[in-house]
């Protein structure tokens, strides 16, 4: 579709003509996000500054039936900001004010375009911790994190973004500005719309302001690494750790392919002869941290770990975490097209899942490396192929179809933190069933009767 001149004039009247772009060259950079292979060119890009401006834009869009795609930093991996049927990309990166950080109430209130890292820094400056830490934290926005319910390396102990959102200001597609939740942990008045909006991927409303809970900054953090002959061994160690009653902050794994790629790229001195590694970390009081890390080390050794090392200092600890954070880029250097996916299975079935992934990769003749959050069963099978080999890309997609089906079969799910977006919509019904899909659509229609907000994604 293309927008009429009158719509553009109205948009300009709402946000000022400097903040509306419509030429081909202006739109092209917004035709993609971080999801490989997806492309969709919008008709206009608009940068609002306030909730009122967002409301005016959405009212106009509803009246004229124009799709509106909210966008933070565009770092999502599920084609969530894809303008595949044109329309307006609504960019929230001008809304970057940190409105308050309150050490007594342990909360912060920010505009949606504030980056995760900026929020975490503002909190740290007052001795507080913003727990969710997606790998993309320096780029991704708090609005995008809430909309995708982002997770991170501290997921096991601290959960995901959902566990920290106390309240939000959201603009509905019809233009109403609502405030859900507030400043309280305990508040059960009404349906939990805050939770409904969290993870709604920009399909129910546009978040403009968010209140998040903070925690006291833990006194210390430390990290260790255990190498195993196989991922199955590592999986058994994880089960033993949890059974022992330890809930560390971080429990991450890399398979042999990932270890090799990370070592080639970052030269951290990882052991290449291992079949898998577990990265474990904890935070809190120094003696408690050292007790829990020692115990994890012991249990790993008992479950056939080849070697366990604890980081002697903060720098080494950071280097180990970096190893996990750089898994995606390290893998991306192996080829020209890197497809990173996201699936979750119950923790005890992690090793089985990885085995099944290997088998599927073999069947489709593609190379799939897997890393992820062992502590919460969330894994990232990653396929690297040649961008110009269409047949290989096609086989990769088929393989991922099987991988999602397998995750569901093992009582898991098709995404643990990256969201559904456009990329996973085809697999959603298999996970939710027809009745729940129908309910989702009814909820979507209640918020968005004209179906203008991020169409083609969740709820479509």
């Amino acid at each position: 579709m293309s927008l009429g001149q009158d719509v553009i004039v109205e948009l300009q009247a709402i946000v000022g003509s400097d903040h509306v772009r419509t030429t081909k060259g202006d739109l092209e950079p917004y035709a993609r996000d971080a999801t490989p292979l997806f492309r969709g060119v919008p008709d206009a890009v608009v940068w609002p500054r306030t909730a009122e401006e967002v409301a005016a834009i959405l009212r106009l869009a509803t009246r004229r039936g124009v799709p509106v795609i909210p966008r933070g930093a565009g770092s999502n991996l599920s084609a969530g900001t894809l303008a595949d049927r044109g329309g307006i990309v609504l960019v929230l990166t001008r809304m970057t004010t940190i409105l308050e950080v309150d050490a007594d109430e342990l909360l912060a209130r920010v505009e949606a375009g504030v980056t995760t890292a900026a929020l975490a820094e503002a909190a740290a400056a007052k001795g507080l911790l913003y727990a969710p830490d997606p790998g993309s934290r320096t780029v991704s926005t708090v609005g995008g994190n809430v909309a995708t319910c982002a997770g991170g390396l501290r997921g096991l102990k601290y959960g995901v973004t959902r566990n920290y959102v106390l309240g939000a200001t959201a603009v509905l597609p019809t233009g109403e500005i609502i405030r859900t939740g507030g400043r309280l942990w305990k508040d059960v008045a009404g349906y939990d719309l805050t939770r409904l909006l969290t993870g709604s991927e920009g399909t129910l409303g546009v978040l403009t302001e968010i209140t998040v809970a903070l925690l006291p900054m833990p006194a210390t953090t430390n990290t260790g690494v255990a190498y195993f002959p196989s991922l199955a061994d590592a999986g058994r160690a994880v089960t033993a750790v949890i059974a022992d009653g330890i809930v560390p902050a971080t429990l991450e794994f890399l398979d042999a392919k990932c270890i090799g790629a990370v070592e080639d790229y970052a030269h951290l001195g990882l052991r290449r002869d291992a079949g898998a590694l577990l990265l474990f970390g904890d935070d809190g009081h120094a003696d408690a941290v050292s007790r829990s890390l020692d115990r994890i080390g012991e249990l790993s050794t008992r479950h056939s770990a080849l070697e366990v090392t604890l980081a002697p200092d903060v720098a080494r600890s950071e280097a180990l975490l970096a190893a996990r954070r750089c898994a995606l880029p390290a893998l991306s250097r192996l080829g020209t097209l890197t497809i990173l996916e996201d699936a979750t299975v119950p923790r005890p079935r992690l090793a089985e899942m990885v085995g099944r992934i290997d088998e599927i990769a073999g069947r489709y003749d593609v190379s799939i490396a897997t890393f992820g959050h062992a502590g919460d069963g969330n894994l990232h099978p990653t396929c690297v192929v040649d961008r110009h080999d269409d047949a290989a890309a096609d086989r990769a997609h088929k393989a991922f179809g099987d991988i999602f089906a397998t995750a569901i079969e093992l009582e898991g799910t098709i995404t643990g933190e990256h969201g559904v977006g456009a990329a996973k919509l085809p697999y959603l019904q298999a996970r939710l069933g027809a009745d729940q899909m129908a309910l989702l659509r009814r909820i979507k229609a209640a918020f968005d009767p004209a179906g203008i907000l991020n169409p083609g994604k969740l709820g479509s």
Partner: protein
Amino acid sequence: MTNLFDPELLDRCISCGFCLPTCPTYALTGDEGSSPRGRINLMRALDTGVLDVDDPRVKEEASFCLGCRACEPVCPAGVQYGQLLETWRDLQWTGRNRPVIAWALMTAAARTSLLRLMGLVRRPARGPATAATSLMLGCFERGLFPGVSRAARRLLPGLAVPADQGCCGALHAHNGQSHEGEEMARRLGEQLPGVVVTTSGGCAAHLASVLGRDRVQELSEHLVATGVTPTGEVRVDGRRARVALQDSCHLRNGLGVSAQPRALISAVADLVAVPGEASCCGAAGTYSMLRPRDSRRILDPKLDAVEAAGVDYVVAVNPGCLRQLDTGLRRRRSRVRAVHLADLLADAAGGQALPRPRRRAFRAFRAG
């Protein structure tokens, strides 16, 4: 037009956006199109024929980009943005589309006879024609800051300084004539014996990309590598001078040299860290001349930070940055002076007296 870019380079980008927070032009506009990732997408659109070089936004971004390469060290996928930009400008800035000022400067710099004349009038360093290591005079530095090469040679008296050296071609490489730029670097490599020492971060990065990393060293890198310890101290008002550093983008982001100048400054003065010292000052080769307004928008917050830090000097390791900082500081009648690293070190060794920081009273007068 299709397949204009090296696919190996273009395909590297995984669109993760990690480069966004480091890009100074993205910081100004908040528009993806003026970010590294957005510009790579514009290049992809050029490559596939979706957009062409006449598209106004494509034109605008090719020149709005500073070429500072701050996007490179943070890129997890190892995208060589600087190289992509050179290809882009080669395509973009041909014929009538070339900015006139850039064209005039490039033509002047390419004329060795003109440079030699400048060498006679402005009297940069002189020295023998052969030695194991040689000093590069630089085209514009020779004319604008001839004292810098003299200071460098005072620090390193053994260097050869052949008089008939041309320009390294960095200017050309960054302004749409990368082929010419490469040729010039190669020629200069033949004119200068041994390891080439340069007092310009920008020239160092370009030369190294053509002659190889082994043959080229920027001054601070060379001093540290050869174990030359600076002597003496720079003093202001009877105390040790407080000195800030402005990194040269290409030195830091292209060659990974940032610790060495800091170590040298710390040896002779009190090094003061200033927020934003690693980000571009807006000089960016010809940028300050081609886009003076944007250049100042980038410079101004940096000068605010330098002034707020209460330093006496801000050190540059590149002539373009030195000129940019000097012009900006003069314009605001700051007490802070911009000096080249070579001058600072030579001054500490008792060789050369730096300009004194201006008196604060002047500021008070202006503010009143």
